[in-house]
């Protein structure tokens, strides 16, 4: 053993926001609010910010007064293009880009050989890169700053939800604060309190959890090196006793090094600085000077809530779904839950859609969660073979992958988060797929979607007369039309031939693609997207 002494970086100084006694304390009767969000993590803050920009003043209840869960400890680090596009619309993208690490190349090694490489930029037409790495607490911090700047959200710190009652026409929420307890009423209540949600548990909702036997040890370390800003993974690293390793750069020269450990290891022993330090020396060599930022052993787990809407309560983020960390499908999907729900809540509250539009949140985000769970479980299985036979199979893949393209497709160190496509539903009869933030006509798609809660009708190659007829629909439905040249890059991205109208939802998903579109066809598609015909059908059945 070396006699090296191990240095720790000074702790991050996180912001704290003051508790302010709300008007509910001491009010004679319960005050009613349109939206109350429990939990100020990624999903809850994204939803609050999204709603603020849509003119909906949400109450956010957070039991803490800062960001991050264990202070500045490790949590999510990889933010995917769809999330970055959402943050562009919310107005914090530039801050994320300036602070974070932009990357698109992932390389996978087996032993000392490279077996697989991907460059996600190849498939990108967006203004945002495929990924930016950033410590999660920074992202939450930027969201809080933005929410405070917009001054259109009631952000309540040190406010813990103690009880939730689902009533027919309201949700009653009891809150504990340093200045006493109170109860409030919500038209819509959002549980964004995370994986261990007591709100979900108190409602008796089952999530079918499972916990891995696979063990890892995160080691966040600060050092300067010419390592490229790429995602490097080893299936079986020679410097980690033939087990997997992750290497990723975050902000402030902090590297996330994540080591797979033996299943029967002692988590306390393997996370001691001297033991973690020896692992680092094996990887980095003797000369690299580093300091620890965080060392934390973990097992991953997953769970899935069966229904994301229970009456007037909706579940977003980890409260609804948890997956293993491979592929960055956790936090990114909490952010996407929020973006899926925000515009729907805004339209329902404005009376522009019936409340059954909120059923489409479950109809879209639950299948997305199922898909993410499947994808992440496959990666976890590849990384942690359970028998000699599984080791043989994986060894065969890695051996052939060194030479053959087909085998590279089987090497699975994570299928990176993408905007999940949604299956056909009453609200999107052909399903719905995400549109990237393409630049066109001196603007961008996200810029067009940033004001209010309006759909965007892209009329490819439409003449002036056709546009006038379409514009008449703008008085009947929340949609604005825009002529786009059929030769534009956006047309290529969306398959928009001349005469086609593509209807883009406020969350930048395509609601419908209508070739040779007539105003009647566009109106029918809008009725679908807002659930108007579905509402009529349900009324008829009732």
């Amino acid at each position, binding site marked *: 053993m070396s006699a090296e002494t191990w240095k720790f970086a000074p702790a991050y100084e996180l912001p704290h926001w003051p508790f302010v006694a709300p008007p509910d304390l001491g009010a004679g009767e319960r005050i009613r609010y349109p939206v109350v969000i429990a939990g100020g993590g990624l999903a809850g803050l994204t939803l609050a910010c999204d709603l603020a920009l849509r003119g909906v003043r949400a109450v956010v209840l957070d039991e803490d007064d800062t960001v991050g869960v264990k202070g500045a400890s490790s949590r999510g680090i990889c933010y995917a293009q769809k999330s970055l596009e959402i943050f562009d619309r919310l107005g914090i993208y530039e801050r994320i880009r300036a602070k974070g690490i932009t990357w698109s190349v992932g390389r996978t090694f087996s*032993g000392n050989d490279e077996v697989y490489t991907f460059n996600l930029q190849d498939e990108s037409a967006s203004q945002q890169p495929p990924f930016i790495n950033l410590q999660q607490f920074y992202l939450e911090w930027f969201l809080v700053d933005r929410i405070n700047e917009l001054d259109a959200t009631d952000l309540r710190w040190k406010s813990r939800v103690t009880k939730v009652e689902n009533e027919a026409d309201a949700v009653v929420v009891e809150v504990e604060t340093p200045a006493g307890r109170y109860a409030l009423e919500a038209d819509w209540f959002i549980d964004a309190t995370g994986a261990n949600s007591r709100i979900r548990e108190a409602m008796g909702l089952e999530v079918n959890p499972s916990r891995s036997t696979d063990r890892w040890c995160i080691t966040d370390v600060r050092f300067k090196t010419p390592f490229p800003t790429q995602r490097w993974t080893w299936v079986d690293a020679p410097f980690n006793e033939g087990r997997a390793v992750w290497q990723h750069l975050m902000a402030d020269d902090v590297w996330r090094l994540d080591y797979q450990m033996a299943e029967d290891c002692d988590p306390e022993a393997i996370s001691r600085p001297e033991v973690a330090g020896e692992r680092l020396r094996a990887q980095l060599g003797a000369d690299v000077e580093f300091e620890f930022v965080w060392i934390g052993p973990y097992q991953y787990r997953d769970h899935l809530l069966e229904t994301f809407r229970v009456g007037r309560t909706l579940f977003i983020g980890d409260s609804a779904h948890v997956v293993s960390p491979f592929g960055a499908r956790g936090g990114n999907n909490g952010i996407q839950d929020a973006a899926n729900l925000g515009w729907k809540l805004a339209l329902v509250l404005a009376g522009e859609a019936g409340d059954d539009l909120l059923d489409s949140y479950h109809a879209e985000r639950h299948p997305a969660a199922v898909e993410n769970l499947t*994808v992440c479980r*496959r990666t976890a*299985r*590849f990384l942690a*073979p*359970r*028998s*000699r*036979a*599984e080791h*043989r*199979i994986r*060894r065969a*893949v890695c*051996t*052939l992958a*060194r*030479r*053959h*393209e*087909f085998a*590279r*497709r*089987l090497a*699975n160190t994570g*299928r990176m988060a993408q905007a999940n496509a949604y299956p056909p539903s009453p609200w999107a009869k052909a399903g719905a797929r995400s549109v990237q933030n393409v630049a066109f006509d001196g603007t961008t798609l996200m810029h067009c979607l940033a004001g209010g809660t309006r759909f965007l009708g892209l009329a490819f190659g439409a003449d002036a007369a056709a546009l006038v007829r379409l514009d008449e629909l703008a008085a009947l439905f929340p949609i604005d039309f825009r002529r786009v040249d059929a030769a534009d890059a956006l047309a290529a991205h969306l398959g928009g031939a001349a005469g086609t109208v593509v209807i883009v939802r406020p969350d930048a998903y395509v609601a419908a693609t209508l070739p040779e579109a007539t105003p009647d066809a566009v109106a029918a598609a809008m009725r679908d997207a807002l659930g108007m015909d579905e509402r009529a059908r349900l009324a008829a059945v009732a």
Partner: protein
Amino acid sequence: MSAGNGPVMRTDANMADPDGFYEAWVAAHEGLSDEESNDLDARLVLLLANQVGDPRVLLACIAEAREQGRRRP
């Protein structure tokens, strides 16, 4: 090699759902002893070989599997 038609054996990506195949293959081995697993893989090779049919392709695959095993594991 076939006459003028490039390599006999396909090594480009030809599986529609590689991750799904891997998952199913691994799942098929669950609960088996190591010998039973080896036997399963042998049966699987036979079944897949019958899908391929062409003896030139089969011999090329056998040769390549053998060749790659000569490298270090």
